[in-house]
């Protein structure tokens, strides 16, 4: 099985080359943009594992980032920072395993809103824990420098992209796609549906756990309303849709497009940039209904036939 350029190599290259080039621009601003960009790439790739491949659209993916961030905060001072971040990732993964069993039985739009509710539920549980602990917001002084955070986040983006490339090539990936297309048929063909869904859900929680920890380190501040902000979930989904394909390419293209676009807009049109952004989003759907990847494919117009999903 060879590497498909546009599907696998392109996104990996984009992330790797981007990660190496951004620091050359030489100031904190670009590192900051890069940090954000790679954070979104990692989040969107993780989301793709369960929502893109298996078709279980999660609108509550922020919950894993929130949990990761919170565990980092709880272990702050008790264990080394990076270990705390790993604890965050593992915690997020375990949480996914724990709730996955009941939650992954719910389908379609019900699942979408259920995941949203789950994230809100977790948010308010954390708020109440914090309030019982007598901590209302946490200030974490003395975290790592931006440079370090940048490299870690770039690595996470690369790992996320790589994981989508790899999973798609595994039996796991084929099984997840089958589940997305028709879960009953998939089961009957021998796909262990529940197990695969759980694995995908747990896998898709790990990286966000780390990303959430990085977000906390970046601001040095933790507050549940911010850490579990549902806008983060919405943005992940938006990026994936804009990217437009459920392989590793979609999230990368979507994240680049949205991050660059809003970066350009807010710095050039600070007063009205949100309105412009709104107009562009609508225009985007009208003129590129299949996302950035669809647009690229059309430009390259490699095949006249509609391509399948490409399980190579």
């Amino acid at each position, binding site marked *: 099985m060879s590497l498909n350029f546009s599907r696998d190599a392109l996104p990996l290259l984009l992330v790797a080359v981007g990660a190496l080039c951004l620091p050359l621009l030489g100031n904190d601003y670009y590192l900051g943009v890069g940090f954000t960009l790679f954070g979104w790439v990692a989040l969107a790739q993780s989301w793709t594992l369960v929502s893109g491949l298996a078709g279980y659209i999660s609108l509550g993916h922020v919950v894993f980032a929130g949990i990761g961030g919170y565990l980092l905060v709880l272990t702050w001072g008790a264990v080394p920072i990076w270990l705390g971040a790993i604890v965050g990732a593992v915690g997020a993964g375990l949480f996914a395993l724990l709730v996955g069993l009941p939650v992954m*039985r719910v389908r379609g739009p019900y699942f979408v*809103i*259920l995941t949203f509710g*789950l994230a*809100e539920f977790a948010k308010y549980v954390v708020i109440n824990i914090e309030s019982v602990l007598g901590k209302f917001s946490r200030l974490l002084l003395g975290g790592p420098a931006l440079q370090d955070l940048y490299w870690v986040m770039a690595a996470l983006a690369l790992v996320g992209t790589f994981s989508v490339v790899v999973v798609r090539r595994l039996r796991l990936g084929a099984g997840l796609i089958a589940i997305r297309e028709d879960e009953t048929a998939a089961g009957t063909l021998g796909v262990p549906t529940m197990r695969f869904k759980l694995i995908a859900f747990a896998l898709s929680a790990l990286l966000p756990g780390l990303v959430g920890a990085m977000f906390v380190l970046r601001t040095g501040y933790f507050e549940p309303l911010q850490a579990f902000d549902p806008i983060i979930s919405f943005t992940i989904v*938006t990026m994936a849709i804009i990217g437009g394909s459920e392989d590793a390419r979609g999230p990368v293209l979507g994240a680049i497009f949205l991050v660059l676009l809003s970066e350009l807009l807010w710095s050039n049109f600070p007063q009205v940039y949100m309105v412009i952004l709104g*107009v562009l989003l*609508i225009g985007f*759907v009208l003129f590129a209904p299949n996302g950035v990847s669809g647009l690229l494919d059309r430009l390259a117009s490699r095949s006249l036939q509609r391509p399948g999903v490409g399980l190579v």
Partner: protein
Amino acid sequence: MDILLSGQLLIAALIIGSIYGLVALGLNLIYGTMRLLNIAYGDLVMIGGYVGYWLFTLAAISPIIAMLVAGVLTGLLGAALYFGLFRRQLSGRQSIERIEANSLLIFFGISIIIQNVTALAFSATPRTYNALDSLVQIGEISITQSRMAALLVCLGLSIFIVFFLRLSPLGLSIRALIQNRTASQIVGIDVNRVQLFAFVTGFALAGLAGALIGVTEQISPFMGFPFTIVAFVVIILGGLGNLAGGLLAGMLLGIIETYGVALTSANLRSILIYGVFILVLVLRPEGLLQKRRMT
């Protein structure tokens, strides 16, 4: 605790429940029928709020009239969006496959535009006004006129719409359209008309509810999101496209919000609401009232 038995608490539960029910009803018409993820829905509520505010502040027009104006305005907006954007999206074979995803983007855009244009026009400063604020005394219960109006209008209107759609061919057409577009066309449903109806009614209900809500809460350009969320939670809880289920779910949330809080602690409000929501879905993966298929 005698608080639990007080009429005051009951009426509070009914008011919240009926507002949730009405707001969700409108969204149900749009998401349920066409699978359009209208996350700008709460922003229509906000528009209704501003209409009420300005009509009262500038012309001393009562919220009862303003609510009709707001409904008409947002209804027209719905018609404009339908003809301008969605009719085409809903009729192409390719675009219908991605309709859920793409409608999310479109409405995300619309939401951003509505919020920010409002903020540019009226500033983000919150607004409030006092209309219909004299107290009505019913036995030991006292309640402001505005909340009384909200209760009567929301409950009355929701029940009316639910029954109307249950009994009329239009309602059956909507339910058919929810399940299968092609089959709906085959039996001769004028898909375009049904969709337009759903758009206009759904949007109008949001605006109308907004004018009522605006009397009791502060209005700001960014107040809409929580309403969007509540509406989605309610329609899923009640079963997608199931209008009566949505009304019931709205009431259920109203009751949890008041009685749940009275029994435990206000801190637990959201935990209770989302907890019940999650529990219901885990036990009944297709919502409270959905008949379950066994295959």
